[in-house]
């Protein structure tokens, strides 16, 4: 059931999906070409954030446009919590698609960088924070009242992420290097999953109490 609801989100955003995935191909290349000092990693981070949020926005627009579909789905035996969890699954699905695209890119063009576990897990943590904060807000206030958050994320991420990477590099010398990499990976993965789980529980609670008519 959950997979069908995730598939539903891909279906309603299908026109936009192809364009955004194409854009996610070009963002890392563009970053390497235009600001090589930032590195391909920033290109990957930006491509994931842009793609996830732009496609999620498209799904939200469709759901805002056809509010009765949610009512129809909830009058079918789909549990309400599955409608919530499918959104998280959808975002993670897009993340995997972006990672796959990036992996193919760097396999074809090794000079663009590499897809390390650091990058995959670091990006997963960033994504968990973003959707972990954003989705409960959107479930609570709806698309119309939260669309400005999309704009803020899209506008600020090209400035914010290079700064964060610089900060991370500075900190990593002092703190991260003292921790075993495997332990660090486990910690980052657990933090990401915890953020997503707490966020999903909050979103479920919000959506369970929502009137769908």
């Amino acid at each position, binding site marked *: 059931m959950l997979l*069908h609801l995730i598939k539903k989100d891909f279906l*309603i955003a299908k*026109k936009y999906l192809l364009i955004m995935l194409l854009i996610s191909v070009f963002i890392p290349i563009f970053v390497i070409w235009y600001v090589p000092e930032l590195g391909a990693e920033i290109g990957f981070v930006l491509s994931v954030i842009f793609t996830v949020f732009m496609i999620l926005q498209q799904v939200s627009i469709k759901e805002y446009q056809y509010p009765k579909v949610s*009512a*129809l789905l909830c009058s079918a*035996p789909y*549990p309400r919590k599955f409608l919530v969890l499918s959104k998280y699954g959808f975002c993670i699905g897009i993340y995997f698609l972006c990672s796959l695209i990036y992996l193919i890119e760097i396999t074809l063009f090794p000079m663009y960088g590499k897809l390390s576990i650091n990058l995959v897990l670091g990006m997963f943590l960033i994504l968990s924070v973003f959707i972990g904060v954003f989705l409960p807000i959107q479930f609570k206030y709806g698309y119309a009242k939260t669309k400005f958050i999309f704009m803020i994320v899209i506008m600020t991420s090209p400035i914010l992420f290079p700064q964060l990477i610089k900060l991370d590099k500075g900190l990593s010398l002092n703190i991260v290097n003292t921790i075993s990499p495997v332990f660090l990976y486990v910690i980052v993965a657990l933090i990401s999953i915890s953020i997503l789980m707490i966020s999903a529980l909050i979103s479920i609670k919000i959506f369970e109490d929502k*009137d769908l*008519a």
Partner: protein
Amino acid sequence: MNKILEVHRLNRSYGNFSLKDISFSIPEDCITGFIGVNGAGKTTTLNSILGLIKRESGNIKLFGLDMQTHEKEIKNRIGVVFDDSCFYDELSMSEMKDIIAPAYTSWCEDDYKGYMRRFSLNPKQKINTLSKGMRMKYALALALSHKAELLIMDEPTSGLDPLIRSQLLEILTDYMKEGGKGVFFSTHITSDLDKIADMLIMIDHGKIVLQEERDTLLDNYRIVKGDTRKLKSEIKNLFLSIDTTDFGFTGISNQISEIQSHVPDIVIERATIEDIMLAHIKGGE
């Protein structure tokens, strides 16, 4: 007859509107019309039954099972038809079906294909190219393809032309022939109920004002016309509603013999469901 749906003391408030102690039941093998003017509380009641809006108090049972504790099982056994805007327009009917169908454990693909053929619908056609009537038929195909035992419809005939409305009523009649089923549909187009409803429930200002078998209702109420000068105040009280002019009066009543004993020269005509509905609304004001 088994009760297929029981609503007991349902309450829900919205700003300046509220459902007040809504109680009614629907027997099996009955087409039940839920009537009332726009804003009377029909959709709010249906949405509460389906769990789409939270009720403040009250119990809802379908097939003898409590909606709160057996939601999934109950929803597997009901088919729901909303008005025309409950699909993603850009999808094809086949894509939309692929979203809805996996929710039902008893989804029957053969039934779905059968209905699509019967309604002359092409599954590959985009939903935004369908007429209002075709959308309604498609919604019915989805609602009837999982062996639903109760069909709940919100204003299904609203905005449809007479031909499509008559086809819809035929489909409902055929569905009922299978036995052990029930249909509960809200409407403000009462002429449809004249044709097929077995039972009528009327809501006004968030309160149930009547629940009666259609034939009993139509047998009990009559339009009465007569001379205004002979209309005394004690006779006026026998009417559900009454309009008077200098030339005469027209009223609706279910106490015809008593009126006739006071005013013998009256004209009595059969009332339609609409006449009775409007009389209840006017009488309540």
